[in-house]
């Protein structure tokens, strides 16, 4: 059975799409057949970050409306043969997302032998976000180290516990993972941001990874290359660690402590 994983947050702009692209790419690189679906109907970001926007012919809504088959709409990633992207429609309206339609697409992906289906959720707790999380087996709760983001993540966790298919059917609860993104240890030390421990204390779910705030993320998304491909970049390595943990490996957390500036750097700046 495919593992259906929603990347969600409640709050907007915290790094869901960046994380969906990075994690889906990382899983594919590790040899797992992975599909990533953009549920943010009307915006279309995922294909930009994955650098495949020019190859979009059909999209998720076309499939839901029966205007194209799933195979026609899935875009094969140019970097990894294991990664497929189902882009969102830029023109359609999100009412096209129906429970039956989404279920149909997910079960077809399962039949096609996908191991992982990553669902990139829109922000908020409206219809699009509900559709993205409803069928999930697991959830990656994307949180920035600030109070409002943590609050919204808490809210989403409550919705997963109460309104997901697993909750409604009384099945084993949705497995929850915490992904802290845009983490800046020196700002945490300065008391300007919540620490990993503060966030864990409030949300109380297992930690999947901590992604540092990094220029490399912006560079990567401007180039249309998910940041996991930047092997030297701190954020790229942190995403690789998170992917490894997702498939059951044990990895120590990196980039959670502020870098000690060397004396020379302190004197000469840097």
């Amino acid at each position, binding site marked *: 059975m495919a593992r259906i994983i929603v990347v969600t947050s409640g709050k907007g702009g915290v790094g869901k799409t960046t994380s969906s692209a990075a994690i889906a790419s990382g899983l594919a690189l590790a040899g797992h057949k992975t599909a990533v679906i953009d549920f943010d109907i009307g915006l279309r970001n995922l294909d930009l970050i994955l650098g495949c926007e020019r190859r979009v012919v059909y999209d998720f809504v076309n499939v839901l409306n029966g205007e194209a088959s799933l195979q026609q709409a899935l875009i094969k990633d140019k970097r990894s043969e294991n990664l497929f992207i189902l882009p969102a429609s830029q023109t359609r309206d999100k009412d096209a997302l129906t429970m039956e339609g989404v279920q149909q697409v997910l079960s077809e992906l399962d039949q096609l032998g996908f191991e992982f289906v990553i669902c990139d959720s829109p922000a908020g707790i409206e219809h699009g976000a509900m559709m993205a999380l409803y069928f999930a087996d697991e959830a990656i709760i994307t949180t920035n180290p600030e109070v409002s983001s943590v*609050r*919204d993540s*808490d809210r989403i966790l*409550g*919705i997963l*516990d109460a309104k997901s298919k697993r909750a409604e059917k009384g099945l084993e609860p949705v497995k929850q993972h915490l992904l802290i993104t845009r983490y800046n240890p020196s700002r945490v030390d300065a008391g300007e941001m919540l620490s990993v421990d503060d966030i864990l204390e*409030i949300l*109380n779910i297992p930690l999947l990874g901590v992604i540092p705030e990094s220029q490399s993320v912006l560079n990567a998304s401007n180039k249309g290359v998910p940041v996991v491909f930047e092997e030297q970049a701190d954020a790229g390595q942190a995403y690789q660690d998170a992917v490894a943990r997702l498939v059951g490996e044990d990895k120590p957390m990196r980039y959670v402590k502020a870098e000690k500036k060397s004396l020379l750097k302190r004197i000469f700046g840097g």
Partner: protein
Amino acid sequence: MSNAPVLKGSSFTLSILQLFDSDTDRALAYLAGKVSQAPAFFAQAPLILNVEQVEGDLAFARLKNGIEKLGLHVVGVVGCERTAQQEQAFAAGIPRLRPGSQGSELDIPKGPARTAKASKVVRTPVRSGQQIYAKGRDLVVLGHVSHGAEVIADGSIQIYGTLRGRALAGAAGNGDCHVLCGNQQAELISIAGNYWLSEQIDKQFWQQQVLVTQRDDALQMETIRL
């Protein structure tokens, strides 16, 4: 259709002033202290004297006067066994009552034992935006109650994790209920409609294990060890 008056029996909950000796000044001072803590609760409230333990003569009239000055009304006396005492009470205009059963001193509410219905047990954390209501019974939450979450019970509430949201016990008006939590960072705590907002809660109780009860119509918080 007859509108003629009828005589019926009924029972009421009344406060009883339990006396142990004939020191009326001390009794009045004690009562004055109670009244000042909860003036609204005692305003024109009926009061019963229990003189069962009192050995010597009691200045009933003096006591009755003092009590009335505090704004309460003495409506009866119980435990009045000796004839002399009965006459003194009668002379002061205090009727003698024979209680059906002996009440004990009002004490820490026995929340869980009081309700026959089993407690509602919540095993998952109560997250922001969620509301849990234990109708007609106690509520036990094994995890945290987040900011923006609300737990409500007609009985008592026991939260073994951190309470960051709102907890409302005795929602149907039972003031004997309590709220217990493993780590107090509450937005609001209420018993029978009597509530404290976080800013009203003394700082010494922040992040502590606490028990909140209601006594004389006022909330009381104490730190406890679980």
